């Protein structure tokens, strides 16, 4: 199942700098996208979402950008903090369906002090 893909298994940034995590999707039916953060031995924690009627959604240090023509979304974290070190998953859904999330592989973000 390659409908949602995160091509970077890992990303390392310095504290205070910007982290940019990327996600691509192939299914044009997807119209609702989410980012989750996961620490070891914990479940995914919801961070931020975006509907396909928008191209940007912001919540504090987290901003998600959606480029529908490119079928690409990204999560920006500014400024990055050591506590942000975790695995980040993007997920996609049909908003009208609202029942089945399709996940990417995840990207391990490490923020160095």
């Amino acid at each position: 199942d390659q409908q949602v893909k995160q091509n970077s298994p890992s990303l390392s940034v310095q504290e205070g700098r910007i982290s940019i995590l990327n996600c691509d999707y192939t299914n044009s039916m997807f119209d609702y996208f989410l980012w989750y953060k996961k620490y070891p031995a914990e479940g995914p924690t919801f961070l931020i979402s975006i509907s396909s009627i928008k191209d940007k959604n912001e919540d504090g240090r987290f901003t998600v950008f959606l480029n529908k023509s490119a079928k690409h979304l990204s999560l920006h974290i500014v400024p990055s903090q050591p506590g942000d070190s975790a695995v980040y998953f993007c997920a996609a859904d049909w908003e009208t369906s609202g029942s089945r999330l399709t996940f990417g592989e995840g990207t391990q973000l490490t923020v160095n002090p």
Partner: protein
Amino acid sequence: EPEVTQTPSHQVTQMGQEVILRCVPISNHLYFYWYRQILGQKVEFLVSFYNNEISEKSEIFDDQFSVERPDGSNFTLKIRSTKLEDSAMYFCASNRQGNQPQHFGDGTRLSIL
């Protein structure tokens, strides 16, 4: 903040045995889900449940699997005649409406010997 709780955190079972994984969704949530993550692979959707019936299931969710809401608070996943390849993290999730972010529990690690 309300949480989805899952028990046990780790379940070890002999191949061929039946196992029941338990979840207590957030109390005012109406939609319930099970996902699994095999080691090194993506988080995969198994089943969604609403109004005391399955609303959607994946191709993974075959006759070996069943779900139940036995009372007003618990949501269970039963796996009959377990196989080695059922070893995975199993995550329960819930949301109040189907088109809102799903909130995940910390998972049950199922090990089949």
